[in-house]
């Protein structure tokens, strides 16, 4: 699994952090998404897909 985020599109909704806090974080200065890891372990797959599905800005791409 590989994750790509687009910080330009991100609107800092925090949805990804709520869905998968071990994978996504937010920048202190403006809440924009940052990846804690771009290749998380498989047991987080469901949470990562949930994060991508609820991201309102379509800023998260997951390649399996």
């Amino acid at each position, binding site marked *: 699994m590989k994750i790509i985020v687009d910080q330009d599109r991100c609107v*800092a909704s925090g949805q990804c*952090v709520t869905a998968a806090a071990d994978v996504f974080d937010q920048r202190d200065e403006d809440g924009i998404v940052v990846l804690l890891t771009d290749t998380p372990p498989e047991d987080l797959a469901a949470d990562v897909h949930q994060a991508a599905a609820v991201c*309102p800005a379509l800023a998260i791409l997951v390649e399996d």
Partner: protein
Amino acid sequence: MTIHEAPAYPMARASGCPFDPPPKLRELQDEAPLVEVQIFGRPAWLVTRYAEQRKLLADPRLSADVTTSGYPSPTGTPPKSDGGVGIGFILMDDPEHARLRRMVTAPFMIKRVEAMRPGVQKIVDGLIDDLLAGPKPVDLMEAFALPVPSLVICQLLGVPYADHDFFQQNSKQLIKMTATQEQRATAHGNLAAYLDNLVGEKLDNPGDDLLSGLTERIKTGELTRQDAAGIGVLLLLAGHETTANMIALGTLALLEHPEQLAVLRETDDPKLVAGAVEELLRYLNITHNGRRRAVLEDIELDGQVLKAGDGVIFPNDIGNRDPEVFPDPDVLDLQRDARRHVAFGFGVHQCLGQPLARMELQVVYSTLYRRIPTLRRAAELDEIPFKHEGAVYGVHSLPVTW
């Protein structure tokens, strides 16, 4: 588009079903994902299904700017005070929308909101102490549902809570669909002048709050004083009305579904509580008058063409009841996975305050019914006044006892 025979939007709810969207919306959803309706005597598209709502709300070819030709609005002009204060970035498009939104995203990020949780718990506990010590029956809206988010947003913004009667009254008037243009302009003007004055004070004497943070940006020239005040109007308004209605209407819905209320009362699992909040957001979808947009460039979808200059309405209430996405959509089931709901909208305008709203609701729903286990209505359901005429749905008052 043709206007003949198109049903008028918004539609009425069925009597005796205060928690369900208007039955006509379900009919139209069954019919097609895109249907024509009329609003303010003009045609507009109604996007009835969840998948199409998400797809179009995330499409940059749709504008949230009321001045865009075709936007479903009675006037086509945004609120603007005599002093030039508007209503923040909610009615703006990118890139200006993104530029301004990013100036206030930091205080709403998950870790900052989590840091506020103990303070919110204290506020909620204190208000429940007061309820238990005071007379009953009591109006839960006035004594609890409005004070919780008002106290929280005041602290966050740096607005004196002592002024709550003033801003609650004016906010209510501003979002009342049946208010005249003059009444709404007056309410907006009052809030705008109030926030402009506060921003002025904080320019001279900055504190440790969101509005003071904005004054730093005025000093660097990134932000005009009018835009700072406009953002203040938006946050103050959105920060208390919505959550207050979720608290009161959510409580009423739970009292009508005692087996669901029991689920909340008997758990101390934060995950279950968080899931319950998502389901109540989905089920109640209090922003019940539809997101509104205008088409900037022709868009083809499901065999239809939405033309530049067409108006579009997204009734998220029926989107959240789409049986393709939520099986048995009209059932309130706190243990279902409702996290995909669109109660906070979708796309770049999705609610900025959602982490805060979620946290406040988690604290409230996990505390109120455990501390007052015998809480019950003190009026018949049909005596309770619902906010049919508000841009945000809920109850005007909720008499309760225990």
